[in-house]
C-alpha cells in the first residue's frame, strides 16, 4: 500500500462538461453573473460557449414572465461547439424565472432557487396557483432552496445601504455559490468589482462581500453533498481571450483597416443586436477610426458610401429592419462599384419581430432585396471567433473587387462567447489595393481583366476628375447611357464580377467521409450544433459529414461536387429554407430542409434526430 496518496475529497466529482443557466428578473443582473462565470471558466482554461437570452424590454415589470433574463454557459474539458442543449444546473432567482426555464431542465438536473423570492405576490405574477417549492411538482429535480436574499442581506450588515440597494447584490451571492460548486477562483471577479465600482467603495465592498458569502455558504453548509471539477480543455497552444461575435467583428474590421492601410469610417444607427459594434469602434479613435451615429439607417449607409468614395473603408451595420432601409443605397453602391461592407446582425421575425432573439432569415433579403438584378458577395461567419476572420475576408473582397459586400452575423453569434486564440499579426493577409492615379490611361469603368474590378480613382487625384452616379453607365467611359445593348452588357458584367470571386475563395470542405450517406450543409451560427450532431452520429458509426458555407454568394466552385458525393443532403436553418432554396435552384439537388425558427439556436439532439430520420433509423 502506498502512503503518499493524498486523501481524496469524498465530495469532489470530476465532470467533462457542465451547462449552467442563470435566470432571473432583467433587473437581477443575470447577464453580468453569466459573463463573470464565463470569463472565470475561460481564464481557467475550459472551452466555453455561451447563450445570453434576454428580453427587449430594458426593465419589464419586476417578477413578470416577460421580464425574465437568462444566460446559459457550457464549459468543458473538451472541445465544444454549442452552449449546450439543456442545462445541468438551473439557477432561478424568482418564480417567473423558474416557470419560464424549468421546462428545459432534464429530470435529475440541479435546481437552485432563491426561496425568498417565492412570495405570494411573485407567485401570482408568475401565474403559479400553488407554490411549486411545496406542491411536489419539482420532485424530479435535485432541488436546492436557498434563502439567497436573506442570507445576502445578513452578510452586508453594517454597510451604509438601503435594503433595496443590498438586494441588488444578490446575484453575486448566487455567483459565489456557483464558484464554490465548480471550484472556481474568485480573484478575477473581485478585480473586476474593484475596477467597476472603484469610485463607489461601499458598492464595491457590498458586491465582494456578497460573492464571498455565497462561496462560504457553499463551502460550510451541507446542503450540497458534492462539488465538481471540470478540468481545463486541451486547446491548441497559444494565447487566448474570451470573445463575443460582435467584439470579434469590431476587431476584425479594425484589423482589416490596418491590413489595407486605409482609415475605417463606420456609419451606424442604433439597433439591437448590432449597436455594440458601434460602441466598440467608437473607442478606437487613436487608430484613426471615424464613427458616425447617423440620423437614420439610410444616412448611415449613405455616409459610408461617401467615405468609400473618398478612399476610406466605408462600413455600416444594422439588423434586418435597418438593412431593408439601406436597400436603395446598397443598389447605388453596386451601380457606382465602390468598396463597402454592410454588416447584418440578423434577428428574429419580419418587421420589428423579436429584436433580441436570433434567426438567420435575411439571406434572401441581402441577396435579392433590391430592385433589378443587383449582385453582391455575401459572407457569413460560423462562430463568434470566426467573425474576426470573415470581417477581414469581407474587406479583402470589397477592396479587390471594388464592390459592396454583405457580412451576415446573427444575434446568437453577436452575443455568444467562446475562447479565441489571439492571432499573430504576421499571419493575417495583406489586403491593400492601390487607387488609380494615371490620367493618361484612366477610364472610370474600364475593368481589370482578371477581377473585372473597375478603376477606382478618388477625389483629390489630379487629372482624373470624373462623374459617377446611379444612372446606368456606359461600359469603359462611365458616361450616362440608355443604350439597350450597353445596359445588357453592364448587367452581365456586374454579375460576372461577383461570380468570378468563386475562383478566389477556399473550397467547401467536408468534415467526415469524402463520400457517404448524408451531408449536413449549414451556414452561419448553426455551425456548432451541426458539428456536434455530426460528431455524435460519426461516433455511432454513421456515414455522415458536415460542410459549412462561409461564402453564400458566390458559392465555392466545388460546392456541387461536394453535395453530389452524398446520397442525401440535409440543410438545417434557422429560417424557413433559404439556403435550401438556393441550393435546389442552382444545382437541381434534391436537398431536404430542417427549419426551426424559435428565436433560439438549434439543439444538437434535434439535428441528430432529423439526420437519423433521413438515414432511416428513426421514424
Amino acid at each position, binding site marked *: 500500500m502506498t502512503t503518499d496518496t493524498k486523501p481524496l475529497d469524498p465530495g469532489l466529482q470530476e465532470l467533462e462538461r457542465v451547462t449552467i443557466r442563470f435566470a432571473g428578473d432583467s433587473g437581477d443582473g443575470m447577464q453580468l453573473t453569466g459573463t463573470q462565470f464565463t470569463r472565470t471558466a475561460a481564464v481557467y482554461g475550459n472551452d466555453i460557449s455561451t447563450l445570453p437570452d434576454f428580453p427587449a424590454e430594458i426593465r419589464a415589470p419586476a417578477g413578470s414572465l416577460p421580464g425574465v433574463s437568462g444566460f446559459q454557459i457550457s464549459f468543458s474539458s473538451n472541445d465544444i461547439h454549442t452552449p449546450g442543449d439543456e442545462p445541468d444546473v438551473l439557477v432561478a432567482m424568482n418564480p417567473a424565472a423558474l416557470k419560464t426555464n424549468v421546462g428545459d431542465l432534464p429530470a435529475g438536473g440541479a435546481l437552485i432557487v432563491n426561496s425568498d423570492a417565492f412570495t405570494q405576490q411573485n407567485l401570482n405574477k408568475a401565474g403559479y396557483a400553488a407554490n411549486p417549492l411545496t406542491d411536489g411538482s419539482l420532485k424530479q429535480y435535485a432541488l436546492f432552496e436557498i434563502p439567497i436574499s436573506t442570507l445576502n442581506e445578513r452578510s452586508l450588515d453594517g454597510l451604509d445601504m438601503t435594503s433595496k440597494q443590498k438586494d441588488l447584490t444578490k446575484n453575486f451571492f448566487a455567483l459565489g455559490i456557483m464558484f464554490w460548486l465548480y471550484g472556481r477562483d474568485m480573484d478575477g471577479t473581485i478585480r473586476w468589482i474593484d475596477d467597476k465600482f472603484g469610485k463607489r467603495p461601499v458598492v464595491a465592498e457590498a458586491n465582494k462581500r456578497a460573492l464571498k458569502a455565497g462561496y462560504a455558504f457553499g463551502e460550510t453548509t451541507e446542503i450540497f453533498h458534492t462539488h465538481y471539477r471540470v478540468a481545463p480543455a486541451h486547446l*491548441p497552444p497559444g494565447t487566448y481571450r474570451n470573445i463575443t461575435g460582435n467584439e470579434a467583428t469590431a476587431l476584425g474590421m479594425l484589423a482589416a483597416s490596418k491590413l489595407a492601410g486605409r482609415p475605417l469610417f463606420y456609419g451606424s444607427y442604433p439597433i439591437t443586436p448590432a449597436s455594440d459594434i458601434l460602441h466598440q469602434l467608437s473607442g478606437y479613435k487613436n487608430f484613426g477610426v471615424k464613427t458616425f451615429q447617423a440620423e437614420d439607417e439610410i444616412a448611415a449607409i449613405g455616409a459610408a458610401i461617401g467615405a*468609400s468614395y473618398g478612399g476610406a473603408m466605408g462600413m455600416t451595420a444594422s439588423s434586418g429592419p435597418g438593412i431593408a432601409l439601406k436597400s436603395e443605397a446598397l443598389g447605388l453602391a453596386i451601380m457606382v462599384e465602390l468598396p463597402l461592407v454592410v454588416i447584418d446582425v440578423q434577428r428574429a421575425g419580419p418587421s420589428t419581430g423579436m429584436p433580441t432573439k436570433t434567426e438567420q432569415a435575411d439571406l434572401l433579403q441581402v441577396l435579392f432585396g433590391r430592385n433589378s438584378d443587383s449582385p453582391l458577395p455575401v459572407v457569413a461567419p460560423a462562430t463568434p471567433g470566426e467573425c474576426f476572420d470573415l470581417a477581414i475576408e469581407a474587406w479583402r473582397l470589397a477592396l479587390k473587387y471594388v464592390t459592396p459586400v454583405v457580412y451576415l452575423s446573427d444575434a446568437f453569434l453577436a452575443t455568444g462567447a467562446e475562447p479565441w486564440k489571439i492571432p499573430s499579426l504576421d499571419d493575417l493577409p495583406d489586403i491593400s489595393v492601390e487607387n488609380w492615379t494615371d490620367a493618361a490611361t484612366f477610364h472610370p469603368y474600364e475593368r481589370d481583366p482578371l477581377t473585372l474590378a473597375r478603376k477606382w480613382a478618388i477625389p483629390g487625384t489630379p487629372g482624373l476628375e470624373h462623374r459617377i452616379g446611379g444612372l446606368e453607365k456606359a461600359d469603359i467611359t462611365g458616361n450616362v447611357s440608355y443604350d439597350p445593348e450597353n445596359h445588357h452588357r453592364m448587367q452581365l458584367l456586374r454579375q460576372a464580377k461577383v461570380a468570378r470571386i468563386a475562383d478566389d475563395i477556399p473550397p467547401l470542405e467536408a468534415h467526415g467521409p469524402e463520400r457517404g450517406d448524408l451531408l449536413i450543409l449549414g451556414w452561419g451560427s448553426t455551425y456548432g450544433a451541426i458539428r456536434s450532431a455530426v460528431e455524435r452520429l460519426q461516433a455511432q458509426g454513421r456515414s455522415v459529414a458536415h460542410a459549412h458555407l462561409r461564402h453564400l454568394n458566390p458559392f465555392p466552385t466545388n460546392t456541387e461536387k461536394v453535395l453530389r458525393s452524398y446520397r442525401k443532403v440535409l440543410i438545417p436553418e434557422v429560417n424557413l429554407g433559404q439556403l435550401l432554396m438556393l441550393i435546389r435552384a442552382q444545382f437541381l439537388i434534391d436537398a431536404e430542409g430542417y427549419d426551426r425558427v424559435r428565436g433560439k439556436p438549434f439543439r444538437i439532439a434535434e439535428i441528430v434526430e432529423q439526420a437519423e430520420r433521413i438515414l432511416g433509423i428513426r421514424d
Partner: protein
Amino acid sequence: MTEPTMPTTPPDQPPLSAENAAVIQLTRKDFVSDQEVRWCPGCGDYSILAQTQKQMPDFGVPKEKIVFISGIGCSGRLPYYMNTYGFHTIHGRAPTLATGLKAARPDLMVWVITGDGDALSIGGNHVIHSMRRNVDITMVMFNNRIYGLTKGQASPTSEFGKKTKSTPAGTVDTPIMPLTIALAAEASFVARSVDTHTEHLQGTLQRAGMHHGSTFVEILQNCNIFNDGAWRDFTDREVREDRMLVLEHGKPMIFGKDRDKGIRLRGLHPEVVTIGENGIAESDLLVHDEQADEPYLALMLSRMFWPDYPVPVGVLRAVPRPTHDQLIEGQIAAATAALGQGDLADVLASGETWTVD
C-alpha cells in the same frame, strides 16, 4: 459638459480663399465638362450652372479637390456638367454621402446640389441633420415649387391650394419655408438668391463657398415647363426693386425703386414703412445683422414673403461654428495624444488572456 472647441490647426484645410486664386490660374472653361447639358431650353438651371462655373476659379481650389454631390431631380444633373469630381446619388440622400465624404476627407471642398422635393420632402431629415452637425458643405437648393423631372406634381414648397397634375383640386398641404427649416436646423450660413439675378447669384455663391460649415442657399428657380413664372410676381425686372429686399450686413433694411421703403419692427412683427411718412426716418429701420448670435432676426426674415412683404435675398445668417470634420479630427487628435497611436496587437490581446502550452 465642456463646449466643443475648434482645433487650433484644422487638418489639411483647402485653401478656400480668394488670395489663392492667383496661384491656380483656372477659368470658367476649366470647370465645364464634356457632357452635353440636357435641361429644357429656357430652364433656370442653365443660369445657375453658368454662375457656378464662373464662380469656381475664385475659390482658388484645384478642381480635383472639388466634389459636387447631387440627389434626384432636374438639379441632380448638375454634377455631370462640372469638370470636377461628381457623384449623382439617390433621391434625398446627397447630404448623407457628403457628410461621410467630408468626414473622411476634410481636404475636399464639397458641394451638394438639390431641389425642393429632394431636400425638403424625401431628404428632409438629412438636410436637418447635416445642418445641425455643421457639416462643412455648401448645399444649393433649386426651388421651383414643383416636381419637374416627374412632370409636374406638387412639391413641399408649392403654394397652398396649387392645382397640379397630382392635386387637381388644389394641394391641401401648407408649404414649407426652406430658410426657416435651415435656420431651425442650426445651419451656420443661410442665404437666398434668384436664378435670373445673375450678379446677385454669383455674389451669393461666392459667399456660400467661402463659408466653413453647413451652408444652405435657396435659389428661386423657374421651371418654364411645369411651373412657369412661379416667382415672376416679385423677381421680374420691372417690379423686383419694389418687391424684394436685398440684405446687406450692417445696413438698414431699405428697398424700393426710390429707396424710400423700409422694414421696422413693430412689436414682434416686421412692418413695411415709407421713409419720410408719419415721421419715419432711416434710423427707425431694422439694421441687418447676419452675424447675430441668436437667429431671431434671420428667422423673421425667413418668414417674410410676397405679397405681405418684400422677399429678402442675400445672406440671412453667417456665423462661425466648429465644423463636423474639425470636431471629429479634434477627438482623434485628443485620443491619440492621450493614448498614443493605436497598436493593433495590444487591442487584440486586451482584456483577460491566458496561455495554453
